[in-house]
């Protein structure tokens, strides 16, 4: 391994001078081989070769020394497309940092994500060190005290700012005071910590934009003897062993990446030697390695199961394989151990065309950007071609066969989601419904016939508390039918909903093929006689049939109920939102202002100011909901 490492470093040094485009995959390989402080130094030195990264800022609030983790986080994040500025809060001042509204995280530094990293031994020393000297009542008090502290800090964070917060859970001690009798004791030590962690988890769950990092899972991953650094804890209050650091960093990234919106919406898979061992064109259906009885086949079986897990999280699957289409259909249908089936894939490109062309075609068919696509392939030449021609695609090179317990997809940060909405869970089914809709479209006589046959119903209402994650997700991900492209966190959406003279809309649509769910939103504010549209967007799934008109009609009605005479909104053009450019004009708005950056439109509020097309069934619901 030392030779391989040395060789990689030399290649990287060469590449950064001669061929920067090949630096990234080499750095990824280095990180895969030996993640840690020393590789981090290397990766950070070659930061410039990684191309365009998204800038985000992090602050770590802590009860212990975390500085050695910072360069490791920075390096690992850069390999996932993030350029992180990482600040560290004062040693042990984490409570003040969170409780004080004038503290830096709310005023000057204002990070996108804060991490609250405190140790059980620091925040609950009595439960950690002195458990055997406590009686039941003392334990109850201690648990309540610490749970209360976390609650206060989390509530304060939400009240004073809009960012996301990652909270470390507390380590359950390895050496329990009562030993094996702890479990059956009336008030055991492990039980006390489990209860404390459950209460911390409750505070996390009931607060939007706050996420739990399970420290005990990290310790389990590294193995307890490999976690705590006794010597550095004693001398410098730095408790984590060097080898354990990249595993903790990985756990941080699996939250930071989805929270900052760096997600992949679709995974395109190669087939031969990626989903099974061997090549169907040569080995035939019977000859490929896939099944529980041998290590190679069992590893591919596990990877296929991971694919279905990803699909259940709302990630769309597609195939891009150099094979005959019929052979692919046959093997997916016939192989006795095949876990994935044709119906699990929303797009299939099995042909002899170059993969970059197929990936572009898949992106078009799924109606998503290339930067939302991840691609996995075992073939280095295919991976290289995609990297060079489609630099926005996330390329996952399968450098060695998957094993039953590990594959590069299972914990990949781009496939993580911090909360799954109903829409996520049923997304793949929705794509199937979409395919059926498209079939109807091609068989309809006229557009109007088609739209009538679709039978679209639109329900617009002020949002409820449960709608917040989905609405925030829509503002983060919708690019095409989006008038102003304002991106909002869950916390911001919640606070808009609570404003007295504002409304956040939840727009739901369904048609004859199925329910689309919550597919649009608008944010409107009323002041004196003018209502202003801050945001109006629609998922690309329902563009082109007038749903947006129903939304405008609802807004006009809302504004009129508040005594507004005017409805005003901006259109901010971007590279992607041409589909929304004509919305105001085609609904009777007048352009009152124009600059190079935006145009402002105005409509006089009145009954029937907006005409909703006859093929949409819609209703005005005006429940004033306290969110």
């Amino acid at each position, binding site marked *: 391994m030392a030779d391989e490492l040395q060789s990689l470093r030399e290649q990287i040094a060469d590449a950064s001078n001669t061929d920067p485009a090949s630096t990234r995959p080499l750095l990824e390989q280095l990180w895969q081989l030996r993640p*840690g*402080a*020393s*590789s*981090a*130094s*290397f990766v*950070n*030195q070659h930061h410039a070769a990684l191309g365009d990264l998204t800038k985000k800022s992090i602050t770590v609030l802590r009860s212990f*020394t975390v*500085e*050695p983790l910072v*360069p490791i986080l920075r390096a690992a994040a850069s390999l996932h497309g993030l350029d992180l500025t990482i600040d560290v809060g004062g040693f042990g001042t984490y409570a003040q940092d969170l409780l004080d509204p004038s503290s830096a995280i709310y005023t000057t530094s204002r990070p996108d994500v804060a991490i609250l990293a405190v140790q059980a031994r620091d925040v609950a020393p009595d439960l950690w060190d002195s458990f055997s000297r406590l009686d039941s009542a003392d334990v109850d008090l201690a648990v309540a005290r610490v749970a209360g502290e976390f609650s206060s800090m989390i509530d304060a964070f939400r009240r004073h700012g809009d960012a996301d917060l990652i909270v470390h859970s507390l380590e359950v001690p390895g050496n329990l005071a009562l030993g094996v009798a702890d479990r059956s004791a009336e008030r055991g030590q492990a039980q006390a910590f489990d209860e404390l962690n459950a209460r911390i988890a409750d505070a996390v769950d009931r607060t939007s934009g706050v996420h739990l990092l399970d420290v005990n899972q990290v310790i389990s991953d590294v193995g307890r003897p490999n976690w705590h650094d006794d*010597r*550095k804890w*004693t*001398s*410098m209050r*730095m408790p984590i062993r*060097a*080898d354990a*650091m990249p595993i903790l960093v990985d756990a941080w990234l699996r939250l930071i990446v989805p929270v900052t919106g760096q997600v992949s919406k679709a995974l395109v898979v190669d087939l031969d030697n990626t989903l099974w061992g061997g090549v169907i064109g040569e080995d035939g259906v019977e000859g490929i390695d896939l099944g529980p009885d041998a290590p190679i086949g069992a590893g591919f079986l596990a990877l296929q199961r991971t694919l279905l897990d990803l699909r259940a999280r709302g990630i769309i699957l597609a195939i891009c394989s150099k094979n005959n289409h019929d052979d692919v259909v046959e093997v997916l249908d016939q192989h006795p151990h095949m876990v994935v089936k044709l119906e699990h894939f929303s797009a299939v490109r099995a042909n002899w065309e170059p993969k970059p062309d197929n990936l572009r075609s898949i992106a078009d068919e799924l109606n998503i950007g290339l930067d939302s696509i991840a691609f996995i392939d075992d073939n280095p030449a295919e991976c290289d071609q995609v990297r060079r021609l489609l630099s926005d695609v996330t390329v996952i090179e399968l450098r060695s066969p998957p094993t039953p317990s590990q594959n590069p997809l299972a914990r990949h940060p781009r496939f993580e989601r911090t909360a799954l909405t109903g829409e996520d869970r049923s997304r793949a089914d929705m794509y199937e419904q979409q395919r059926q809709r498209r079939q109807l479209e091609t068989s309809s006589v006229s557009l109007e016939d088609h739209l009538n046959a679709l039978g679209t119903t639109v329900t617009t209402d002020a949002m409820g508390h449960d709608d917040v994650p989905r609405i925030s997700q829509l503002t983060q991900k919708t690019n095409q039918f989006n008038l102003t492209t304002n991106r909002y966190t869950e916390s911001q959406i919640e606070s808009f909903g609570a404003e007295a003279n504002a409304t956040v809309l939840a727009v739901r649509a369904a048609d004859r093929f199925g329910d689309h769910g919550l597919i649009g939103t608008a944010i409107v504010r009323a002041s004196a006689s003018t209502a202003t549209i801050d945001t109006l967007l629609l998922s690309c799934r329902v563009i082109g049939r007038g749903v947006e008109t129903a939304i405008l009609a609802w807004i006009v009605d809302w504004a009129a109920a508040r005594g507004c005479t005017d409805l005003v909104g901006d259109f901010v053009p971007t590279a992607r939102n041409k589909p929304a450019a004509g919305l105001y004009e085609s609904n009777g708005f007048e352009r009152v202002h124009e600059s190079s950056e935006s145009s402002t439109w105005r409509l006089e509020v009145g009954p029937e100011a907006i005409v909703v097309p006859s093929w949409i069934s819609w209703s005005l619901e005006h429940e004033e909901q306290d969110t």
Partner: protein
Amino acid sequence: MNTDIADRVGGLAAGVFDVSRDDITPASTSDDIESWDSLAMLNLVVALEDEFSIEIDPADIDQLSSIGDVAGLVARRVNG
């Protein structure tokens, strides 16, 4: 063998202290390098433990004043 260790130590130090490789010599001390404080030293120790798969006793760190000293300590740990 020891020049290889000295070289790798120097390379890591340059990365950790965020200076150019040429600014690091065996004679370099914390007086020469502005960003070399106790936290930066801790970061270097962690990087060295990772690079050489060794454990460095914090007690030994207090004895180190130059990069050459650091490389010497690493060599002793590596060679057992």
